[in-house]
């Protein structure tokens, strides 16, 4: 079954990568403002771009042209962050924030470094304050995952956090709403480092997902919630034994616009490119990650 998804998955991520390359000015951060004045959403989009490109680099299943496009996008994103200096200034301004470290960790995965920021992160992870952040459990797991990427000790035991997540509670499957679904997907992403360590997710939760993920994939496909579907397909790729869902991949490929943009849901893309970018950049980035991981798991390219 896994071979059946290679073609649509590769098509989806390659086309999405093309759209991101053409739309990359949408990721540009405002100039002439202080680090604190940069809108959170703008910084978040650059962070997500860096994350997606770091996974393409890590999985190494992209063709030469796509790999080159990914490197250029990663370089662009790192440039927007002034080679890490912007994150460093943000961290100096707001020592309690975990955001700069989380963003930095993605770029470290892609091979970028900013030594002063790394030193700052090591210091902050060791503080008592890092153990008692008032964050949702799956957001705490993001901090733990970033620390792991930077080679730092986990500020909190991830398995303790896991018990407090939606997924960790193994809820009734019909209680899944959009917020729970995104919490679930990110719990899996962080625990498995986007599939590189499937065993990071305990066996009983893998079994829980094998039981209910087919239902959620089916319902989300039917409702054309493409962004969430792509995230659930990433979850599948993070499991020890992925199911692959060839029909869902075909539907995702059909939903993708000819120019490579994956619509967030049934919303028609606005004619204005800036508006279209704001609404649909995330789903297109998720498509890149989902396609990359699906191909990687299917061809067994990961080492």
């Amino acid at each position: 079954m896994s071979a059946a998804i290679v073609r649509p998955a590769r098509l989806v991520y390659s086309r999405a990568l093309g759209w991101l390359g053409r739309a990359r000015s949408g990721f540009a951060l405002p100039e002439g403002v202080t680090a604190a004045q940069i809108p959170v959403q703008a910084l978040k989009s650059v962070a997500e771009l860096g994350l997606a490109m770091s996974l393409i680099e890590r999985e190494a299943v992209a063709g030469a042209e796509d790999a080159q496009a990914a490197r250029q996008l990663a370089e662009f994103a790192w440039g927007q962050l002034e080679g890490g200096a912007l994150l460093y200034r943000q961290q100096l301004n707001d020592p309690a924030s975990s955001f700069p470290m989380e963003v930095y960790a993605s770029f470290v995965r892609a091979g970028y470094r900013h030594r002063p920021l790394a030193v700052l992160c090591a210091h902050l992870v060791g503080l008592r304050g890092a153990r008692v952040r008032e964050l949702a459990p799956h957001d705490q797991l993001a901090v733990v995952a970033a620390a792991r990427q930077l080679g730092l000790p986990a500020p909190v035991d991830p398995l303790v956090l896991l018990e407090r997540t939606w997924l960790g509670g193994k809820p009734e499957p019909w209680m899944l709403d959009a917020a729970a679904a995104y919490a679930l997907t990110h719990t899996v992403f962080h625990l498995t480092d986007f599939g590189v360590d499937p065993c990071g997710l305990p066996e009983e939760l893998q079994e829980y997902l094998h039981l209910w993920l087919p239902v959620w994939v089916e319902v989300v496909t039917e409702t054309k919630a493409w962004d969430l579907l792509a995230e659930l397909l990433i979850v599948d790729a993070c499991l020890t034994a992925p199911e692959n869902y060839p029909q869902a991949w075909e539907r995702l490929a059909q939903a993708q616009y000819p120019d490579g943009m994956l619509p967030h849901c049934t919303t028609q893309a606005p004619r204005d490119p800036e508006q279209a970018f704001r609404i649909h950049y995330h789903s297109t980035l998720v498509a890149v990650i989902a396609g990359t991981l699906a191909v990687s798991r299917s061809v067994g390219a990961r080492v």
Partner: protein
Amino acid sequence: MNALDVARPPGSVAAAVDVLAGAVARAVSGADGAFGLDGVVGGWSDPVVGLAAVRVLGADALAPFLFTGRPLSASDVEVTREALRVFPAPHREDPGDARVWRCRDWALGEVLAHLGVSEPRTDQTAAALDSDGGDGFAGQPPWLVWSATVTRLAMLALPAVGGPVREQVRRRQRDIWRGLARAMLRHDHLSAARLARWLALDAAVSPESSPESLLGAVLCHLELFTAPPPRVRLEIALARRLVEDGQ
């Protein structure tokens, strides 16, 4: 549906089905120890809608007698026979639809036989299931297709009715659960209740790996969140009774 609704003769088959389903649900739940088909539909000004309701509910209309052990009265038997005579199984081009009718009539025959009423009938269940309904049911169809099919065959989920479908359900509990979860997420409460009923049939003997502990939660959820219409209420009542009797 309240007592006033029951007293008012329904003007359509759909309304008649609701009235009868409500009455059966109450009887199955133990709230009406004097239930009888004739007593519910016999006095209506338009007898045809009552017979149609009996035909639509099929074996389920006789469920109170299965659970209480009370014998069918002669008039109840007569109402059932009249419903079968007036509304014979329709011809259906779609093989899946045709199979549903064969199965529901087979189930009705099984229940009547269990209640001591012998009717001339043929054992059609094997043929019904072996025939390809366009969904590969006789093989090993995916959970989505299979659970949709057994949803339509929920009238077979009665203690007096065994057969190949029951055996498949017993083997594929996880797939029933998947279908049920999907129905809940889609707010398809009738399908959810029908699949819960299938699960209730085997609740006492479910393997530990199945999520049987969710069954009580799903039934309660359906009751509290959906203001269930009579046919959904009937499926829930049957499921609850099956769970109780299985313990």
